[in-house]
């Protein structure tokens, strides 16, 4: 089971592809010879069998069996082709809907965050002012006053929480133009892993870096990649139990570099796979997570021209792979 999220960078091309897959035009173009063979061979053999029936009945029977087998095989081949095309169409539609949805949610969130930020700031100021007045008031040590102070403190705390959410929303919706520099990915991962180490050791979790020292430099946006790597490692840490393992590895080929964060934690139930990168989707308790972490990672990686691949087995763990193009601007990784 795996989910693959690819950007619909060029909607026009995606739509054309969808059309050709749905109508079979692509199948026809790519397999013209095979298709002619499928259409002509069985009838030709059938005609031969009919002709042979007059001259040599055993030969005719043999030919008839051959025709039958050939027709069956041909039909099967076409059916497979057809269902595969159907599946491809479905997943492509899913991806199109997904990225449109993400863009819409991004815009909506930014709008809401902007609108809500001002009232939040006013509430915070008023609470502060009330606290200030309270501190100056006489006889301010009665139980009622204490209660009032507690109440104000709680208002502050909740306002801060709201502020945190609006900040994350704005951050999620912000479009970032990547600034490209040569990045030592091994060191970048190790730097971020050091931030996770302490918390990992509290949980008795081993954070293993299996990183080659001779990894080529990657031309990408360092702070954005740091954010993604830190997010994925933090998620992994939340997913594993006491004594679990997280392994970070890298792989490189001619076109891509992969950064792989694997854990042996709870895994992701199949029904959640499709929602994984949807903003606000979270399995954490209310107040524990906003459900924007992975959605943000997804956005950041898309912005860098890459993809995030996920595979997971419930109860056995998950693997998140960030696949980035080695030459930026060579288009989205497929």
């Amino acid at each position, binding site marked *: 089971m795996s989910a693959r999220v690819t950007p619909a960078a060029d909607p026009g091309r995606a739509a054309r592809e969808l059309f050709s897959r749905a109508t079979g035009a692509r199948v026809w173009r790519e397999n013209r010879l095979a298709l002619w063979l499928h259409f002509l061979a069985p009838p030709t053999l059938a005609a031969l069998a009919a002709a042979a029936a007059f001259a040599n009945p055993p030969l005719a029977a043999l030919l008839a069996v051959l025709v039958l087998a050939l027709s069956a095989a041909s039909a099967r081949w076409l059916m497979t082709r057809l269902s595969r095309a159907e599946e491809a169409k479905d997943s492509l539609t899913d991806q199109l809907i997904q990225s449109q949805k993400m863009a819409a949610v991004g815009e909506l969130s930014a709008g809401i965050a902007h609108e809500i930020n001002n009232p939040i700031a006013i509430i915070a100021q008023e609470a502060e002012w009330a606290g200030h007045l309270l501190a100056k008031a006489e006889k301010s040590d009665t139980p009622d006053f204490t209660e009032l102070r507690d109440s104000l403190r709680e208002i502050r705390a909740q306002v801060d929480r709201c502020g945190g959410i609006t900040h994350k929303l704005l951050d999620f919706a912000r479009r970032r133009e990547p600034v490209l520099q040569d990045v030592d990915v091994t060191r970048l991962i190790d730097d971020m892993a050091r931030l996770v180490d302490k918390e990992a050791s509290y949980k008795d979790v081993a954070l293993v870096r299996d990183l080659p020292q001779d990894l080529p430099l990657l031309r990408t946006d360092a702070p954005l990649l740091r954010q993604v790597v830190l997010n994925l490692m*933090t998620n992994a840490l939340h997913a594993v139990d006491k004594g679990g393992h997280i392994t970070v590895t890298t792989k490189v080929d001619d076109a891509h570099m992969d950064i792989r964060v694997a854990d042996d934690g709870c895994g992701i139930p199949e029904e959640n796979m499709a929602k994984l990168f949807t903003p606000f989707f979270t399995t954490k308790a209310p107040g524990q997570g906003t459900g924007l972490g992975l959605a943000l990672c997804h956005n950041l990686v898309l912005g860098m021209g890459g993809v995030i691949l996920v595979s997971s087995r419930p109860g056995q763990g998950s693997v998140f792979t960030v696949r980035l193009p080695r030459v930026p601007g060579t288009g989205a990784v497929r």
Partner: protein
Amino acid sequence: MSDISILLVDDETDFVETMTKRFRIRKIDVASASNGPDALNLLEGREFDVAILDVRMPGMDGLELLRRIRAKHPLTEVIMLTGHASLETGMQGMSLGAFDYVLKPADFDDLLDKVRRAAERRALNVRTRHAGG
């Protein structure tokens, strides 16, 4: 060779003094402040390529200062320095737009390299800003 300017903000004066000396030996222009408001004042007066901020400071903490620097001086790249590794503040710092998040004690050459990368990023940003009009 280098004409990088740094603003170092940390309430531990000993640390600031040592770092200032070491940067100056490398011919890097360093100014320092021991708290957030002083740092913001310095930034009003002149531009810095890179600001290095301690996370934990009395009064305005490093994250708040980072937030304000990113809002008012978006071209200045910020490197966060922290004595205690906290995932939560690390994530916050990176999402607020820090260039890097470094654990104390930081190896000086390592930090210097990060400063150079941050300054390079600033230069790239300045260039695209000019090119884009």
